Structures are given as C-alpha cells and as structure tokens.
C-alpha cells in the first residue's frame, strides 16, 4: 500500500511522526492478541494484517494476495476464522485476536493441528501453512472435518501454491480425531 501522491504536500508543518502523504494521523489503539493487550500506532486505513506484521512484528500471519483470495492471512477474531488482510485494525479493537504465534502452549508444546501438519508433512515451502493451521483449528471446532470432501470444502478458502492438499487433508483428519468439535461436544 504505497502512500498516495495527491495529498503529499501538507499545508501546515505536520507532526514529525506523520507519515508522508497521510492526512489521517497515526493513533494508538489497543489490540488484544493471544491473551495480551498490545498498544499499537496505526492509521485508520491500516489493516489488521499490516498492524500484526509491520507494527507488532508478529510475522507468522502471512500476506499472500492481500485481497481476500488466498487465506494466508487467516487469524481468529473472537474465535471465528477471518482474513486479516480485509479487516481494519480498528475494526478488531475490542475483539480477542488469535494468531499462529499463540497456538502452541507456553512451554512450547505444539497444538494438535501443528503436530498433525508435521506428522503428515503437510507443506512444501510453508508459506500458506500458518493460515492453513489457523483455518484448520476453526474448521475442526466448527465440526466441518467429518470427511475428506467436507474438509476440502471447508478448507477451500486456503490456497496452497505448492499443492500440498492431500497431506493437508490428512493432517486435518489426524488432528480432528484428537480434538473436540462444537458439533460433537
């Protein structure tokens, strides 16, 4: 997202922190991420994805397309999987945000879905993997991991350019066997 050219000449001397070409200043907001409050300076147009990656250096959440088409940026907002690239950081104020960084236990024990991705070798380059895993956690919780066909349908929002789909499906099945779902609990 390059700065815009049209507003590049500020009339009065702006505060030093004002990014070039931005009439809307940075403002502090509080985001509740992985169980902790983070105060972060954002512009109103800053997406949750850019706030996570560029401001908070939580780079586990990936930017693939930046347009809602690939799922690499999948995070959870109040327990629901959403796309961080099409969510403004300010829209996420007041919600509980969960990212891939918060998935493993405090002692480093992997989440069942992470362990299943390792066990099934469910990636090649790994770029889509954090999004796949966050999506899979929600998919299982929603009760949509009942069959291979159901997994493929409910994981279709996560593209894998390496084509690791058969292994991803196997990993979701393996993890689903180990985890409760809303539908069954």
């Amino acid at each position: 997202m390059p700065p815009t050219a049209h507003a590049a000449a500020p009339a009065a001397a702006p505060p030093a922190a004002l990014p070039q070409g931005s009439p809307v200043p940075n403002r502090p907001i509080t985001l509740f991420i992985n169980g902790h409050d983070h105060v972060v300076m954002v512009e109103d147009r800053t997406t949750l994805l850019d706030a996570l990656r560029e401001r908070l250096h939580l780079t586990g959440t990936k930017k693939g397309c930046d347009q809602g088409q690939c799922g690499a940026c999948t995070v959870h907002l109040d327990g629901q999987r959403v796309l961080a690239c099409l969510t403004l950081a300010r829209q996420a104020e007041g919600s509980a945000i969960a990212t891939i960084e918060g998935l493993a236990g405090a002692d480093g024990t992997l989440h069942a879905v992470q362990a299943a991705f390792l066990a099934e070798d469910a990636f090649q380059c790994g770029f889509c993997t954090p999004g796949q895993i966050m999506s899979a956690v929600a998919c299982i919780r929603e009760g949509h991991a009942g069959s291979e066909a159901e997994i493929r349908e409910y994981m279709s929002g996560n593209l894998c350019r390496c084509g690791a789909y058969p292994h991803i499906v196997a990993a979701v099945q393996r993890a689903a066997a180990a985890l409760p779902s809303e539908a069954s609990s």
Partner: protein
Amino acid sequence: MRDFAYHRATTLEQAGPLAARAESAILAGGTTLLDLAKCDVVRPAEVVDITHLPGLADIRADAESLHLGALVRMAAAMRHVAVRAACPAVAQALALSASAQIRNMATLGGNLLQRTRCAYYRDPASFPACNRRTPGSGCAAAGGVTHHHALLGTSEACIATYPGDLAVALVAVGAVIEIGTRWMPAEDFFLLPGETPHREFALEPGEIVTALCIPASAASRRSAYLKLRDRASYEFASVSVAAGLELAADGTIADVRLALGGVATIPWRLHAVEAALTGRHPTPATLREASLLAMQGATPRPDNRHKLDLAPRLVHRALEQLLQGDAA
C-alpha cells in the same frame, strides 16, 4: 490503499448522515469495500463502520415471513434452522459462496451490494475505460476476454456480470429489502446498466439497508440453489439457478420461482420460464421446453457462448431435483 478516516457508528441516526457525506462509504464486513479500495476502484475519504449498530443482526421467523437483519453474517444465516426451513435456496446460496473465512466476516446487507468481478472494472491502472467506474470512459470489456461477462441485461455501455449468489435466491422467492422505513422488492433493488452502469442499486447516498424479508410461501420452503463453477469451491458462479416449486393437489405446478446468476448484469428472474410452467403438469417434455426459454434474449460473446446451453440445463436439473424431493 489510499488514506481514509474510520468512524464507528453506534446509532442508525448517526450513521445515515455520516454515510451521506460526499466521499464517505459504509463499511460492514469490508470484504468488498476494502478489496475495491486496494484495487483503487473506490476511493473513500472516510468509512463508517456500521457493524456495531444495535438490532440489525437478528434472524426472526413467523407465519408471514423470515426476517434477516442486514448485519447478520453469511455464516450465521446459512446454518440457522429457521433459514434452512423457510428458504433452503438462501441457505444453500450462502453455503456455496466465497470461503468459510469470508462468510464469517461478510454481512447480508453488504453481500447484496457486492460489485462485479469484471477484471477491467477491478484494474483502473491497466484499463482506464470503464463506464461503471468512470461514467463516459468507455468499456474495455467489450473487445476483451468475456468468459465471465453477462449475456443478459447488457447494454452498449456495460456487460459486467452481477456476481453474488444470495441475491439470486432472494429475487427468485420475491424477497423485500428494508431500507430504514421504506421497503422495496429485491427485484427492483438491482438496476440494469442501460446508459448509467455506475448507478447499480436503488439506494440514495447515506441510505442503509436494514433487513431482508422473505415472505412465507410453499415455493420458498421447497427451494434449492444450484451453482456451477470453473473450480469446485471458493469461486463465483459460472451459472447458478435458484428454484422454488409448489405443486397443486392435482399434481400441476401451482407456483414456480426461478432466477439465474452468473449470466446477467443483475440477478435474473426467469418470468418466461415460470409462465410456461405454471398450471402445467411437470412432465419431462414440459420441463425441458420451458427450461429452453431461460436464455431468451441473450447476447452471447465468443468466450461465453457455452452458457446458452449450460443455463437451460441447470434450470432443468434444478426443477427435476425439486420434483424428486417430492417423490422421496
């Protein structure tokens, strides 16, 4: 993405005037608005987040109708028992839309107002000519790749397809759109491009869609949504059909509702096919002949001619599926 200011509205009275300001845009789930802002197709100076407005996220059903608040998320509507019972076509249209993530984010009101996926419309840097985006600038699609473009409801000025699924089901079952204190049939909400393709919806600046309302009917209760796509999932319709059916005691068709998606500039109600079926016995020959009327008046292009065959076949299949439901 260009800069804009963000406002979180807390009452409808506050949101309306804010949204009516010249360079203001309503923000709901953001899955269309932020996408188009990144494409530089829409350039709001301020966005008004309406998702915190109270009372607009209810689903209620009674004997007369099914009421869906404009802020209900797609995922919530598709799995709601009242929606599945009152209008399976709507539940199925939503379930076959976008992805699980987008369905958690997107609202039903925003869904209606999603914009065409025309590649020329979405890329102003490469294709300055687009009458829908910039009135009078021309149409880059006319001489371009038209695989996804419309065959019905087109004009000299614009051939962009309306991409949504939900609206096709709503138009078929005669839904009504609630805009604050006024009401409008869903069929009138979507505007044909004509000479003014930039006017897409029958909404004035600042007007907020507050609810969708589906009148109770036998045809709505026995309805279905079928969608053909270029890939199996997470894809817009190549052709889709919303169909609803009511049979009389003597086995003739008492009421039939049909609309097409993926082939027209607006959700396309099939009045001619409905008329050819109403009062008739649903014999295979009658179904086939009536279905052939689906693409009446179509203007095909080299890349989308296959839809002339595809659409009638899908209409036929939808009707057969609803009739088989009767036998079971």
